[in-house]
């Protein structure tokens, strides 16, 4: 299994039936394909729909129905569409159960930076700041390091997305939970040791007596 699939599968285990979920562009989008059997969730796309689905088959696209990247999507029966203010009312108002977002850095306090690299990449925050500030649960799904440089760091050097502490970090090496005491190592990936994780992490990890392996087959 490649690293991204492993991350997506592990994140999918966090979703519960009936949840309203927003998946960021890129890796987080893969989560939708790995929902456990019987877990039906509603996916929101922040451009204005609850109930987005993949396009059912080639030729079934509609010009007025797209995801936040502008790509064609489908809609489940019972979907609802609305304007951008309502869409972010759902996000900011605490009605979104889970958001899964990519990350550039997460620090010891669980703060995420994922929207800008000064002087290099200025894409804009899009909906990320609202999502991280407003969702009931924020899960960061990202690779553990970028070309060997840790992405989990003592203190974010990149501009923050929000000062809100994220709830969970899922990487190809580990599951880490930011708490008020620090970053707790909750699980390691199959075949990965605690030492492996710590070696690629730029912040101190709190390591419990036993660290289970991710329940991914």
């Amino acid at each position, binding site marked *: 299994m490649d690293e991204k699939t492993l991350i997506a599968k592990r994140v999918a285990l966090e979703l519960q039936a009936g949840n309203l979920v927003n998946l960021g562009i890129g890796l987080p989008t893969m989560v939708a394909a790995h929902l456990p059997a019987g877990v039906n969730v509603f996916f929101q796309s922040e451009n204005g729909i609850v109930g987005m689905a993949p396009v059912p088959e080639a030729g079934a696209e509609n010009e007025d129905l797209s995801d*936040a990247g502008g790509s064609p999507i489908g809609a489940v029966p019972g979907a609802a569409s609305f304007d*951008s203010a309502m869409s972010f009312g759902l996000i*900011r108002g605490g009605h979104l159960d889970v958001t899964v977002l990519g990350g550039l850095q997460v620090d010891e306090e669980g703060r995420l930076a994922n929207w800008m690299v000064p002087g290099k990449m200025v894409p804009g925050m899009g909906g990320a700041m609202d999502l991280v500030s407003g969702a009931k649960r924020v899960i960061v799904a990202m690779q553990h390091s970028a070309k060997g440089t840790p992405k989990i760091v003592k203190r974010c050097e990149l501009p923050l997305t929000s000062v809100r502490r994220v709830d969970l970090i899922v990487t190809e090496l580990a599951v880490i939970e930011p708490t008020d005491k620090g970053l707790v190592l909750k699980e390691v990936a199959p075949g990965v040791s605690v030492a492996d994780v710590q070696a690629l992490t730029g912040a101190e990890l709190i390591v419990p007596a036993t660290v289970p392996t991710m329940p991914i087959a």
Partner: protein
Amino acid sequence: MSKVRKLEEAVAMIPDGAVLMIGGFMGVGTPPHLIDELLRQGKRDLTVIANDTARPTVGIGRLVSAKVVRKVIASHIGTNSETQRQMIAGETVVELVPQGTLAERVRAGGFGLGGVLTPTGVGTVVEDGKQRIELDGKVYLLETALKADVALIAAKRADYLGNLEYALTARNFNPLMAMAAELVIAEAEDIVPVGVIPPDSVVTPNVLVDCLVAKERRHG
């Protein structure tokens, strides 16, 4: 009193230097013929308030590529390398606003509110220059209303009075912007007789629309 105008007449009402709100999200829900005609008439020095600038050859991105935009207020430009290039080169001013905040600022403009208090952006660079207000121990930023000279709206269906309906994710910023500009020009895929759109299906009431662009004839 039909509000239908020819495309060129409608766009001729927009002066150079105008502040435009343009509906759409990555081009979906952006009025294509109004963009075409803005370019054909060579409008320039525009300020554009919109969710994004799509891609260099799509929707609002076409205005950016034609270098007729002086300033962009948007939530992201990540999909348009030309907007990023112009920003870094100092050719175009880009003001980035969190998407939910942008929606509320446009809405506030149209709803006669001075602004809203949002938790989004607290403790980030978005906070720079803004009032922080604490209520019951929670900190908010005061985000102020945005208004425009002209709103360019894409609707699915209109009636001849100007009532508008939207479709699926093409709705996005359109109904908010239709409230927030002095002059509202709407382009609809279809224009139907008055009474065809039921009152509960109207999203933008006709009194908000100044000018409806005629669709091209398919028959006869």
